[in-house]
């Protein structure tokens, strides 16, 4: 059976593309007010506090969870960008990047390190749009260079996060989502 995934909105993510990309990667979508999902995906673009407000009261349970872009940043304790708290599943604070030009917008490569999501995707190109970056820690499983080396992928147990947009990263992005869907399948 195909894994059932619910996409939750936090701020202005491209929910349409995320949903279509997950379907292409082999998932069945559960409506936002529906239930019985095997995993949650949290896409999001925009300000940290807007996203933090949108997900207040969200119960993750122990289900696999994928945060995309702002959705990844919301996994941490907080951000320089806002004053509200993040979900706090991962330690540390999101900080503004140090680079000549921000946002970091466009295609960049990811060096994966022992990453479940990145299997078969070493040094592939992914599409980024962000100005803030997550803190370094042991759960970082992929790195990207832009003015500085910053975490592009985090994985910790059932929690996954990617700073780039797999739904906008062509075939590499779809493959990464397939890896996530496969992880969900094995989780069941």
């Amino acid at each position: 059976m195909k894994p059932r995934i619910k996409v939750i909105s936090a701020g202005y993510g491209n929910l349409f593309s995320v949903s279509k990309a997950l379907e292409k990667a082999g998932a069945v979508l559960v409506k936002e007010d529906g239930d019985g999902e095997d995993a949650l995906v949290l896409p999001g673009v925009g300000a940290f506090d807007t996203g933090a407000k949108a997900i207040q009261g969200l119960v993750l349970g122990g289900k696999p969870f994928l945060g995309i872009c702002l959705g990844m940043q919301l996994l941490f304790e907080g951000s320089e960008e806002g004053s509200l708290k993040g979900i706090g599943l991962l330690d540390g604070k999101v900080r503004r990047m140090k680079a000549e030009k921000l946002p970091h917008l466009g295609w960049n490569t990811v060096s994966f390190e022992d990453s479940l999501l990145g299997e078969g995707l070493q040094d592939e190109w992914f599409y980024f749009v962000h100005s803030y970056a997550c803190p370094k820690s042991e759960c970082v499983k992929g790195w990207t260079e832009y003015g500085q080396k910053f975490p592009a992928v985090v994985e910790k147990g059932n929690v996954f996060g990617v700073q780039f947009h797999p739904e906008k990263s062509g075939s590499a992005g779809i493959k990464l989502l397939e890896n996530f869907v496969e992880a969900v399948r094995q989780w069941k």
Partner: protein
Amino acid sequence: MLAKRIIPCLDVRDGRVVKGKQFQDLKDQGSPSALASYYDGQGADELVFLDVAATKESRSAMLETVRQTASQVFIPLTVGGGIRTVKEAETLFKNGADKVSVNSAAVEQPDLVVELSREFGSQSIVVAIDSLSGKVYSRSGSKKTSLRTVGWAKKAQELGAGELLLTSIGADGMQTGFDVGLLNEVCGSVSIPVIASGGAGKMEDFLEALKVADAALAASTFHTKKILIPELKGFLKEKGMVVRS
């Protein structure tokens, strides 16, 4: 390292591609989503759909086009042409667009750029500027405005544009190279990414433009297959440029 982007532009009217009749290998030559899939397969880094009619009918056909394309093509999609309100932009975003491009409406009501970037984030707002002899033209290049190109570029960034799509009217359609002088001037005065447009004719033109700009856009050069994207990227890479391959 961040890659320089290659962006094909599709002119669309009433849900059909206006140019690009050379695509005999596509089942439906006039279908924007079929052409979008083709370019995705070729390695295009992004796509721009421009509604050249921008009538009520053409706009609603564009929505369907965007939905269809975003259901099967997973690279960034910018939509422009006649967008004048936050509501119109919102409808496009909900149907799968990643960015909207505004041109005349931004010139005539600059507050629109402020509202759009506040509502959707500046990363999804492109201000398109048509320039001739240092001046901004609106209404598809038919109306000369009092704005100076460099001044307007700076102003657009201040208002909240996340990117600029800079077209040189003089170079557009000539295939004699991008207006590198104009690109230098504008890129030197803003800190947001600039997409070069107008004048692409040969691979060297892209190289020269991308030494200055962050991305290069072309229509007929790609539609007529005068330049194929995989070959162009190979050429740029050989010349030391970072491109997605």
